[in-house]
């Protein structure tokens, strides 16, 4: 499989289906694991990193339960290929920027990835569209069990799975849900929402995870505590309490916009649509912002002739890495803005 086999279509976790799909974009679970007998990566020689990479690559590519597993070398990838992989959430920004032997195994139609030599030796990840954490957990647990039959992980009876950073210790689990919350922002309730999340010991991050801003009103909510809690309990709490509560806040904010601030809403939607349909140069941040408003308008049934799948597709295809991979070459910022505007116009008109 090549990256260009992926680049022209939307990744499955972003297809706009699933439970609470108007607000919940996707569900994600990751597990942090390390092989016993090796140092963590900060104290690992290049030879050891290479040994770890080859070991996991062989194990993962030969796992019967993975569908169409393929390996992508990140160390020798071109800059635009790394940007592309970050945009599709196949690798993290941290991994794109690092050095040394490292790579990613992608399977299950991009719903499973395994980053090798990121912050830990192995970072497994499962994704699904909509709110589907239980399914993500079942799948990742099954894959993790299969790997554990071939590799001995660093594990301690008292501390659980040992990780390079003590904040991931124990279960090594990060449960995240990506949410689209434009109405909370428009009604100026974001600060309240972020404070409430912090109080519940949850992390709030932007579109591309750690250290990124909330572009296009997308937020990732995730657990922070990984030790002293069972994986199933975190999944259950997110599924039955935390996410439904946030979805309700957003819905109430949308109703508020519908009622008291109808003109404001109408104006935002009309402006977004007009700019997207007619502009000649659009930066990727502007595109995210306008597409976000458009997406809300469609979900609130204010805009009727554009399917959500088209908007989701545009979110991804207008990112810098996607534009360049699909063109097959590097493009200057101005050329990208021109091509982005043209891509959007073609799809919307």
């Amino acid at each position: 499989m090549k990256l260009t086999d992926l680049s022209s279509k939307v990744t499955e976790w972003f297809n706009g289906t699933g439970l609470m799909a108007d607000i919940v974009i996707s569900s994600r679970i990751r597990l942090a694991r390390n092989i016993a007998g090796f140092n963590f990566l900060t104290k690992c020689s290049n030879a050891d990193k290479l040994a770890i990479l080859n070991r996991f690559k062989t194990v993962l590519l030969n796992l019967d339960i993975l569908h169409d597993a393929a390996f992508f070398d990140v160390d020798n990838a071109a800059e635009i290929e790394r940007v592309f992989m970050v945009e599709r959430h196949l690798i993290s920004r941290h991994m794109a920027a690092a050095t040394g032997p490292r790579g990613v195994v992608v399977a299950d139609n991009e719903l499973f990835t395994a980053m090798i030599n990121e912050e830990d030796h192995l970072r497994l990840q499962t994704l699904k569209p909509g709110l589907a954490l239980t399914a993500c957990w079942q799948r990742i647990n099954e894959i993790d069990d299969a790997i554990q039959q071939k590799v001995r992980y660093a594990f301690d009876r008292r501390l659980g799975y040992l990780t390079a950073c003590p904040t991931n210790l124990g279960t090594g689990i990060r449960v995240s849900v990506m949410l689209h919350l434009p109405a909370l922002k428009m009604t100026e309730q974001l600060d309240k929402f972020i404070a409430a999340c912090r109080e519940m010991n949850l992390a709030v991050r932007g579109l591309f995870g750690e250290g990124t801003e909330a572009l296009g009103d997308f937020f990732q909510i995730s657990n922070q505590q990984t030790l002293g809690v069972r994986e199933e309990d975190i999944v259950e709490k997110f599924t039955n309490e935390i996410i439904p509560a946030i979805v309700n806040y957003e819905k109430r904010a949308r109703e508020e916009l519908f009622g008291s601030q109808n003109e404001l809403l109408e104006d935002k939607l009309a402006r977004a649509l007009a700019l997207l349909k007619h502009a000649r140069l659009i930066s990727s941040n502007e595109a995210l912002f306008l597409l976000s408003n458009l997406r809300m308008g469609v979900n609130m049934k204010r805009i009727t002739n554009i399917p959500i799948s088209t908007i989701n597709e545009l979110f991804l295809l207008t990112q810098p890495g996607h534009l360049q991979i699909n063109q097959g070459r590097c493009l200057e910022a101005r050329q990208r803005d021109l091509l982005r505007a043209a891509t959007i116009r073609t799809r919307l008109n």
Partner: protein
Amino acid sequence: MQCQNCNKETATIHLTEIVNGQRSEKHLCQNCAEAEGVTVKSQLSLNELLSSLLAAQAKPGGEDGESIVCPHCGISLEQFRSGGRLGCPHDYEVFKQALRPVIAAAHNEAQTHCGKTPAGITESVDNALKIEQLKKQLEAAVRKEDYETAAKLRDQIASLQ
């Protein structure tokens, strides 16, 4: 809610004082609270009391903190503190004392794993759950200032660990 002193920052510290039966409330931001001599530290005394109770057992002598170096990977505690990443799995044992408060702060005071366990290592899970339950009881006992029960619970936790 805004800080009632500066009217700018969000009030994160809420004080209730009862003097001669008169109840008064204050809502302050971190800075104004510190300026008034109210430190956040004083609010953490329960946690501190707990961790000192738990840490009182088995403190190895001769540890002078930052200069310890892991004999397996060569990382020093100082290097870990500045980089935030450990060098190898043994560091959890080598820097046990120093890591205890770090782990407690990151994991809502938990110190013991109670989730998934690799096949072949099963007996520890029940134990871990028991320890977490005892810790909650210990917390409640300290809150009620029932130190006799707290001491018993502490010993039970130590024997299970």
